[in-house]
């Protein structure tokens, strides 16, 4: 009976921990350090973006990183547990050949590990 109590308690606890609507935050050191980098520096350290979207006088470079499968999917003798497949879009606004805006967006919204996947894209830019 105690086991049943424990299971019910844990499940109810988890249900209370359901996600709430996303909010914008701005305390990511990786993203902050990208501001001011030149376009050439960015292409060198992060590689070619998936897309370049013209925006006013500038351009937005878009990068994407899917979370590693090992992080999303687990395996045990008593069965596997696939998790939510997720990733992170990084959009960088380039104006006058310089990064003036950065946005990290996790997809699907609210999915695990937030911006970690975006940080991985720019690991080479922080050295």
């Amino acid at each position, binding site marked *: 009976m105690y086991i049943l109590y424990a299971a019910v308690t844990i499940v109810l606890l*988890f*249900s209370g921990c359901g996600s709430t609507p996303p*909010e914008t935050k701005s305390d990511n050191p990786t993203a902050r350090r990208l501001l001011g980098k030149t376009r050439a520096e960015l292409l060198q350290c992060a590689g070619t973006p998936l897309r370049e979207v013209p925006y006013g006088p500038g351009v937005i470079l878009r990068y994407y990183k899917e979370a590693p499968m090992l992080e999303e999917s*687990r395996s045990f003798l008593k069965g*596997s547990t696939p998790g939510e497949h997720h990733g992170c879009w990084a*959009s960088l606004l380039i104006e006058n050949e310089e990064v003036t805006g950065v946005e990290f967006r996790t997809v699907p919204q609210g999915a695990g590990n937030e911006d*970690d996947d975006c940080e991985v894209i720019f690991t080479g830019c922080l050295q």
Partner: protein
Amino acid sequence: MRSGIGKVICLLILCWGGALSSAYGLEKYGRPLPSMEGGEAREAEETLFGGYLLAAPFVSNPTFAARPDNTGLVGMRYMAHLEMDLYRQYLTFYTDQNFFSDRKNGWIELSEWDMTYALTGLIDRWGWRIQYERDAPLDRSGLKQVYADVLATGNLHAADDFSWWRHYFPNQNLNAYAGFGWLFHNSNYFARPDNTGRALFRYVAHVDVDLYKNKVVLYGDTNFFTDRELNNKLKATELDWIVGLAFRFKDDYEVSVYREQDRSLDKPGTLIQEYWAVQLRFAFDVPKRLFREFINEKP
């Protein structure tokens, strides 16, 4: 009565604490960018299908059997796992193909094949699954264990669910789930490691403690089974637990060391199946874009 009220109060406090959590998925710096929700673009980059391959020598195995009839001792485990989102995170198909060899029979020749096919999904922090599993001997005819079950789980992702988590543990995370399952079809899937009884319900709990940036992960997993042949069908008769430590590198590789023990809870002195294993796992995933490019390149 007092004890019951106490439990209810505890639950309310815990759920309230959970409700205080907040998830975030958007970070902005410098000049604002126009809205780019991803949408179609995410579609192209997301995984079409993925999975992993693993090999695990059972480095110490005094009792873990190499066939469903509890004969032999496992030497090696090999597994292929494939998963594919059919409709976002709400509906995913996966299959596991597990193979075992018998260390008493030369380690090479395979002795058991366990196949699993399942549909699973996530709705917010709730998970569901319907699964079919068939465990059969490979090197001789004999007993097959087959079942189909449904499972519901509640999930916790600390870094997403608690706004304070990242402040105190910027490089750590804690993911967990717990749930209840029902083996609605059972052909010889037993309720104890000594192959007695027949399983009816399962209670599961799992925790991953990400010790450093998802590179070092400590994990634990428990499965309880109940016996449909007992009067009390909710009483757990078997406990299977695993504790392991995994090291991940280059995104797609993982080496882990783990210990599993399967034991009866109501028949002391009966068979306990246990082992230590070292496991190498290689993961892969194919984005839809790559698949489309491959198709388009074909003459």
